């Protein structure tokens, strides 16, 4: 009850970034990402992550404000949806859209990216790609796309459980196109960062994805089409079908 009273008092205080930082205790910066500052803090006694989307001087202030509000809001809603669909993700604890603040559960562990880079191709890394695929399949089945499902956005906790993080670019969508772009992004991360066993990792991922999403074949077909849209690919689809110039 006391916590609730304190929370309601915080509502007013949580209006500016400065004040937010005051109600969060013992903060340490985890990262300055492309989009936000990520802090690890005590929030009402809970080990938490505070994600702050700060104004960017190189963007038009109006676009910037609009993006900040909509992404903060969407991120919280997307995480809740993912949790509902059986995907492990950090539980949201607090949100203030105007100041671009989202506070959520802290997930201890290492990035899947670092884990894979260190261990290379083995059964364990394959299994994690499979789980990542399963999670993405669950999201897609529930009309949620992650927006950036790379190995930098997955954490393995000390119990060996995989968490999906950073729903900042997530969308509620049932469009095949959006789902295919999700898979395309996952593949591209594999190609740019985990090229040691590109095809193997992709197969592991697809094994999990096809298990949890029944329209996976359609998605994969669409991914192939999207890839031929990239600039100057060797094989590009023309009105006559697949063609090689």
């Amino acid at each position, binding site marked *: 009850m006391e916590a609730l009273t304190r929370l309601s008092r915080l509502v007013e205080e949580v209006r500016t970034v400065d004040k937010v930082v005051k109600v969060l205790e013992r903060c340490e910066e985890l990262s300055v990402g492309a989009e936000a500052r990520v802090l690890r803090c005590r929030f009402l006694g809970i080990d938490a992550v505070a994600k702050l989307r700060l104004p960017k001087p190189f963007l*038009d202030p109006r676009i910037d404000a609009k993006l900040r509000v909509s992404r903060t809001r969407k991120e919280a809603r997307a995480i809740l949806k993912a949790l509902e669909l059986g995907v492990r993700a950090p539980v949201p604890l607090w949100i203030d859209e105007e100041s671009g603040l989202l506070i959520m559960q802290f997930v201890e562990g290492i990035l899947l990216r670092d884990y894979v880079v260190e261990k290379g191709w083995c059964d364990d890394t394959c299994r994690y790609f499979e789980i990542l695929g399963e999670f993405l399949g669950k999201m897609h089945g529930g009309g949620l796309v992650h927006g950036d499902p790379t190995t930098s956005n997955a954490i393995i906790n000390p119990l060996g459980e995989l968490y999906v993080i950073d729903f900042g670019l997530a969308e509620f969508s049932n469009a095949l196109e959006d789902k295919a772009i999700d898979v395309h992004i996952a593949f*591209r991360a594999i190609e740019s960062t985990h090229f040691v066993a590109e095809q193997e990792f992709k197969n592991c991922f697809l094994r999990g994805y096809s298990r949890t999403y029944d329209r996976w074949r359609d998605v994969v077909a669409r991914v192939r089409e999207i890839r031929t849209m990239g*600039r100057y690919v060797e094989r590009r689809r023309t009105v006559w079908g697949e063609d090689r110039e």
Partner: protein
Amino acid sequence: MIVLGIESTAHTFGVGIVTDEEERFVLADVRVKYVPEKGGIHPREASRLFAEKGPEAVKKAFEEAGLTIKDVDAVAVALGPGMGPCLRVGATIARMLAAYYDKPLVPVNHAVAHIEIGLKVTGARDPVVVYLSGGNTAVLAFVSGRYRVFGETLDIALGNLLDTFAREVGLAPPYVVSGKHVVDICAEKGRDFVDLPYVVRGQDVAFSGLLTAAVKMYKSLKGREGDVCLSLREVAYGSVLEIAARCLMQTGKREVMLVGGVAASPVLREKLMAFAKYYGVEHYVVPPRYAVDNGVMIAWTGLLAFKHGVRIPVEEAIIRQRWRVDEVDIVWRR
């Protein structure tokens, strides 16, 4: 070592001669530019001009350098990516020079050349590369021997977006007036922001929806044309910088470099400066002279490659319109 390079991927037929023996590395820089009377580049018209003026440009380059073909160690040529008819002219001339005068022929990827000349003239060492031109929009970084694509456009290029918009609403041609793009000039009159689709998907951008929406809005919002130009530009530049930021984070690089024809935009330079300050990295912008297509960049990249043993038999030197930048092993950078 002295290398001659030929560029003919799109609107410019360029011949460059470079050396690595002197501080002043450019010995010759001749350019023939195709300017369409209306609309965009017509590959046949451009290639016709190249075929007509190309041999003369080569001759002029030798005169400028005070050299003859005998002084040249190798001939480099941009075999792609680009427009087929245009590429064929440069490739034909390069193959002829190599075969007739018995000079090694060096294949150069046009996009790699934009990056290499950028590194050479700006002094950047290992940057995240933002490559923006009429035909390209990509964010690249050197990882494990290649310039890898971290993000790119899923449909049209940034330069293409701005040019097509300008043409559709009657602002162009000409596309650039006294160093400024007509969309930037139009944006100077803008004050309010109109709602246009901002599309960033993971590390990629997409502009075709933005183009359609902006053209429609420009035509329907009489008196607010400046607002549409401003919003279009801000959304387009903003989304590209956003994917550049993602690449910075993912690679941990400490520099960012802008290359390609759109690098000449003063507005974009300013934004890049603010961007670099925000993320605490160094920023570099290729000067306009070398940001646009030219022969020097092909010659310089050819020189780097040739020194590391890259060459191609004349009979195998076929053009590749869709030669991706990440297919090229950058053997001179390890």
